[in-house]
Structures are given as structure tokens and as C-alpha cells.
């Protein structure tokens, strides 16, 4: 693994579960090895006390941005990159992450991560923005494949080839979301195994796992439903090829009991252990 920060198994820290996360981390057994925070929700100068305590206790924290719009043609907003950098400094983070996506155009906010057309033109925009962001960040950047409901007719690359091009052009690391690969499988017929075969798996810094729901034949990556067996199967297929340095469970709404979150973390550990036992 050249991406090698040994992160382990983690969970997305959210204000709504700020007491659950330390409980899970302190539980007997492996618990929680790292957390990820949404950069836009954590002011670097006013970190919530519960998160501060968790970090002071030795918990690694990875800042995760959702609004850089790295795939957008609007100019990159320097204060958004600066915030990621400040959070990385504040937490001594091993890396930060963002998305292969755009979230505004012509100054209008979409309020959501949207897919870029997988074209040469979009590759050039992403490459320029990623290089500009990397120049301002004190730590490596990883970018994530998103969950999409729409696709562009002008796509020239497969998802795997597009991400591979980005890695080759910028040296960016990958945050591979297996739930988003599943989303692409259901919504666009993507073949997860073929995608994993083509991706530079040595450049995967960590992995996202999250639940979603099927509505009228479309998979919605809600982060508000349980993680399904199909999604864990893609994690297993990935780990069978290369065990990722980190796997993070994302839950953003309809928070279940501590026991349910602990069980999902255990399922992830089991998949990784099985792959190592191979």
C-alpha cells in the first residue's frame, strides 16, 4: 500500500451522535480506530467540546469536505481549501478528503454533490482544481467517487478509468465509497468487480461504507438506512484484491441504537478479517 496510513475501522463523527462515538470507542473489543468530520460543520476555531475530548484522547480525525466543488468550472474558493487545511493542522490529521463532483455552477448552489461528465474537459478542470488544492494543503488529499442519480450522455470514460486518470495526473489518493459503487451498479449498471479490477487499489487511502434504500428501482444513498449485504459484498471484493488501510461507516440521519452501529462496525471488521485470512 503506497497510500498507507493505517487508519483501521472508523465512523463519521456527527454532533447528533457525539456521545455515541466515545461509547463505541471505549467499548470492550476493537471499537473505533478513527473518525471523519464534515469540514463545513466543524469550525477550526470552535471545535465542539465532545470532539475535542475525543481527539485529545488519541482518536485520529480526518476532515472531509463537501463543498470544494473540485469538478466545477466556477473558480475554486480559497477559503474552503483553507478551512480543510486549518482542520488538518488542528487535528494533526494524516490526510483530508473531498469528492469528484461539483456542487455549484454560475454561482448557484445545488445543495448537493453532482456528478461531472466523464470527459477530457472535466478531467482538465478536476486536475487543475486538485493540483491547486494540494498546493494549499499540509497533508495528502483523497477524492471520493460519489453516489449519482443522473448521468451525462457525453461520458467518454468509465468511472474506473476516469479515477485512474485523476490519480495519474495529480497523485491524488482515492477515498473509495463502496456504497457509491453499489449505487452506480443499481442506477447505471456499473460492474463493481470490473471497476475494482481497473482501479489503482494501491492508491486507496480509505473506504466509505453506508446504507441506503431502493425506491422505484433507483438506489438512494441516504446514509439513513442500514448497510446491506450487497454493499458489504463489494467491500469484500475490494479487500480480496487489496485490504484497504481504513474503512469508515457513514451515518447521517435516522440514527439507530449504539448496538446497531456497533454491529455494523463489527460486520466491517469481519469482512476485513476474512479477507486477511483469505
Amino acid at each position: 500500500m503506497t497510500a498507507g496510513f493505517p487508519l483501521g475501522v472508523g465512523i463519521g463523527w456527527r454532533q447528533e451522535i457525539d456521545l455515541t462515538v466515545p461509547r463505541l470507542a471505549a467499548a470492550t473489543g476493537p471499537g473505533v480506530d478513527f473518525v471523519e468530520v464534515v469540514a463545513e460543520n466543524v469550525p477550526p476555531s470552535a471545535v465542539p467540546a465532545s470532539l475535542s475530548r475525543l481527539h485529545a484522547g488519541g482518536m485520529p480525525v480526518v476532515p472531509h469536505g463537501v463543498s470544494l466543488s473540485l469538478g466545477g468550472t466556477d473558480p475554486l474558493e480559497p477559503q474552503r481549501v483553507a478551512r480543510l487545511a486549518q482542520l488538518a493542522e488542528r487535528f494533526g490529521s494524516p490526510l483530508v478528503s473531498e469528492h469528484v463532483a461539483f456542487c455549484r455552477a454560475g454561482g448557484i448552489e445545488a445543495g448537493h454533490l453532482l456528478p461531472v461528465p466523464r470527459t477530457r474537459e472535466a478531467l482538465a478542470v478536476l486536475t487543475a482544481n486538485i493540483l491547486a488544492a494540494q498546493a494549499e494543503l499540509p497533508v495528502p488529499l483523497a477524492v471520493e467517487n460519489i453516489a449519482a442519480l443522473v448521468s451525462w450522455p457525453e461520458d467518454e470514460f468509465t468511472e474506473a478509468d476516469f479515477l485512474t486518470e485523476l490519480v495519474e495526473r495529480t497523485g491524488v489518493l482515492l477515498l473509495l465509497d463502496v456504497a457509491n459503487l453499489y449505487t452506480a451498479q443499481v442506477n447505471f449498471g456499473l460492474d463493481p468487480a470490473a471497476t475494482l479490477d481497473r482501479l489503482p487499489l494501491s492508491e486507496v487511502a480509505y473506504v466509505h461504507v453506508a446504507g441506503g434504500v431502493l425506491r422505484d428501482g433507483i438506489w438512494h444513498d441516504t446514509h439513513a438506512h442500514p448497510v446491506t449485504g450487497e454493499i458489504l459484498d463489494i467491500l469484500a471484493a475490494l479487500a480480496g484484491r487489496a485490504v484497504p488501510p481504513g474503512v469508515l461507516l457513514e451515518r447521517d440521519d435516522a440514527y439507530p441504537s449504539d448496538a446497531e452501529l456497533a454491529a455494523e462496525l463489527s460486520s466491517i471488521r469481519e469482512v476485513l478479517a476474512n479477507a486477511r485470512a483469505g
Partner: protein
Amino acid sequence: MPAPADPPVPADPGANASSLAARQLALVSALVARAEPPAGMAPERVHIQAQALLRKRARSVARHQPEVAASLGDGFWPAFEQYAAQAALPAGSAADAKAFASYIRKTRRRLFRR
């Protein structure tokens, strides 16, 4: 409440309608300002994406204004859809929640006056 906004015209939308900037603007405008979907993109998927965005906004507004959401009960989602159909997207979920609460207050005043 601001009037339904036309999609703002960017300074330079690119050389032509097929440029990346123009295509991205077309998708965002379709999602937040009910413009036509980008040419060649499946309109039903754009509709599903717009609905998903609305649900995401509604959840966020309900978190910011739990008492308003609770007072509406099952009427929350229909009320939110009506609100979203006549208002431009406010910047940020706190502003969205405030605008929704104000919309509900005005709607209730209109009902009482009848």
C-alpha cells in the same frame, strides 16, 4: 418571501451550450430553478434527483425547526413541497429553515383571515 427567481445569468457561461460550464449550469438550474434538464440527460432521472434534493432539504429544515415540523405533522412534506415550489433556494440550511417557518406563519395568517 422573494419571488421565484429566474436562474441567474453567469458572467461567462462558456463559449456555447455544450461547454462544461454551460452543461453544469443547466443541471443546477434544472434542479433548483425548474429549468429544462440538460440536453440528452434523462429527464425522469433529473426529476428524481430534484425530489431527492427536496427531501434532503426538508430533513434539514425539520432538524432546524423541529417545533414547526411537529406542528404540521403529516402536513409537513406537502407544505414543504409547496414552499419549495414558490421560493428560490436560500443559501444554507439555517436560512432555508427560517424562510420555511416564515412561509408557514404567513400561510396560517391567510387561512385565519378567510
